[in-house]
């Protein structure tokens, strides 16, 4: 007789261990429990019910019944009544119909002779109830009840764990959905913004074009040749800005300009506008600059290349103009070089180009750059012409 509690304890330890090992699946865990308890204790039917709250109403849902063929029994209203009344029980208890009381009455309605009702509690919280119906042998039921009181908290933990986890999963799913919705609406807003930005660049470019047209019309209606010349220069400057906006709204990021493309186009436009046959050699570069830097660069190039085209090669003198824009460790070097008559000789035009040079000076300062002018004819370097160099820190577009 001394052996029995010991054997039971062994079995009990096994049960707890196995329950915990199946903690990730409460359904499987309950099935294991109902099947094994039925065999161990000897009952016709074992039911595991989980207490759930749905819109404020308490329900007991069958999570396991053994044997499965008696499932219909679980749907009987009396089973729900027993489960509800089990909330009043502090410990596992045995009931028989003749004893009277709500649980006994319910057993009577079910035609059941005896039953063990084991509340499944986590602390004071009711997680469910375990029902052993129609006991085959009621001797030793005290030990059985004590054991069940020790066993059910382990299963309560499994249920609670699953409940929390399930809630967590639901919460994660809800938040994921929210995030997706928000991302979608943000993407839409971004797309709208891009369209608008593109439209703005387009408008800016169109407006600059109108400005240049106005200058053309003004020049065209003037008989004063120096005024016409001045207006033409202004037109060129504005066109170099319009070209930046054209490159901008064709760029993917709508914020930076491909300088290779820009300088190539600008040089071609300038040669065409001045009807020059002096070749402009542009060294290809892979450089993008933000609008804040591409506008001053464009204006500087406009001045320097225009100057070179106009004054470096007078009287059909031959030569070329070399333009480059190179980047090294974040420093950009913009250079315009000719092998023409040199600054001193072309300075005869000092009055006409003084604005141009002071613009270059000012814009180089705006770029936080250094302007270097090398007059090769003065420095007696054996060469001719002028080299303008501006080194400035390039900004990440």
């Amino acid at each position, binding site marked *: 007789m001394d052996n029995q509690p010991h054997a039971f304890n062994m079995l009990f330890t096994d049960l707890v261990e196995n329950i915990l090992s199946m903690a990730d699946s409460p359904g499987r865990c309950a099935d294991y429990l109902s099947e094994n308890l039925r065999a161990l204790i000897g009952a016709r039917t074992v039911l595991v019910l989980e207490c759930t709250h749905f819109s404020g109403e308490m329900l007991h849902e069958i999570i396991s019944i053994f044997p499965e063929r008696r499932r219909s029994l679980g749907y009987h209203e009396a089973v729900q009544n027993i489960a509800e009344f089990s909330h009043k029980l502090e410990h596992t208890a045995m009931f028989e119909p003749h004893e009277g009381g709500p649980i006994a009455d319910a057993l009577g309605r079910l035609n059941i002779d005896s039953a063990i009702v084991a509340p499944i509690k986590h602390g004071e919280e009711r997680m469910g109830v375990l029902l052993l119906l129609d006991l085959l042998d009621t001797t030793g039921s005290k030990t059985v009840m004590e054991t069940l009181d020790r066993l059910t908290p382990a299963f309560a933990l499994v249920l609670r764990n699953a409940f929390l986890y399930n809630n967590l999963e639901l919460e994660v799913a809800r938040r994921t959905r929210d995030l997706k919705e928000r991302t979608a609406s943000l993407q839409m807003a971004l797309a709208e913004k891009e369209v608008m930005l593109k439209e703005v660049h387009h408008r800016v470019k*169109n407006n600059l074009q109108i400005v240049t047209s106005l200058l053309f019309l003004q020049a065209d209606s003037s008989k004063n040749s120096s005024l016409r010349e001045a207006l033409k220069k202004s037109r060129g400057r504005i*066109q170099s800005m319009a070209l930046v906006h054209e490159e901008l709204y064709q760029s993917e990021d709508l914020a930076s300009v491909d300088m290779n493309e820009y300088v190539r186009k600008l040089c071609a436009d300038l040669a*065409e506008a001045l009807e020059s046959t002096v070749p402009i050699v542009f060294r290809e570069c892979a450089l993008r600059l933000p609008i804040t830097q591409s506008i001053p660069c464009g204006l500087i190039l406009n001045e320097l290349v225009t100057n070179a085209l106009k004054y470096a090669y007078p009287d059909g003198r031959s030569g070329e103009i070399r333009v480059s824009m190179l980047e090294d460790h974040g420093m950009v070097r913009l250079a315009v070089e000719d092998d023409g008559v040199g600054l001193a000789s072309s300075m005869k035009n000092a009055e006409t180009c003084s604005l141009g040079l002071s613009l270059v000076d000012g814009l180089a300062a705006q770029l936080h750059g250094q302007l270097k002018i090398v007059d090769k004819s003065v420095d007696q370097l054996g060469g001719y012409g002028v080299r303008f160099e501006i080194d400035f820190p390039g900004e990440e577009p």
Partner: protein
Amino acid sequence: MTESRSLNIMIVEDERIISMMLSRMVERLGHHVCACVTSAPAAIEALDRVIPDLAFLDINLEGEQDGIAVGIVLRERLGIPFVYATAYTDAETKARATATAPLAFLAKPIDLDSIKSLCDLVSN
């Protein structure tokens, strides 16, 4: 080479200042602007009255029809050469415009030289 003859030019452009500039440029080259309108229906209507030698068409015009509608009429009904003077357009528009077989696409800003070479091409 004989002296190039004076052409009758049609301008379809809804930006008035740009069409004014275009008119001036054309006139300075010794040609005549026979019609200067701002919309596609106005252009198509004008084509009942005048027969230009060359037309400059902006693609994005006020109203529902764009310059391509005028291009189609010029090409298919009248066989008159025309040029699209336009800023950047999307690929789909560009493809539609190309399908009408224009003489050229004139990039904005419009300059006198390209106008001159196009007029020379037509007049010779």
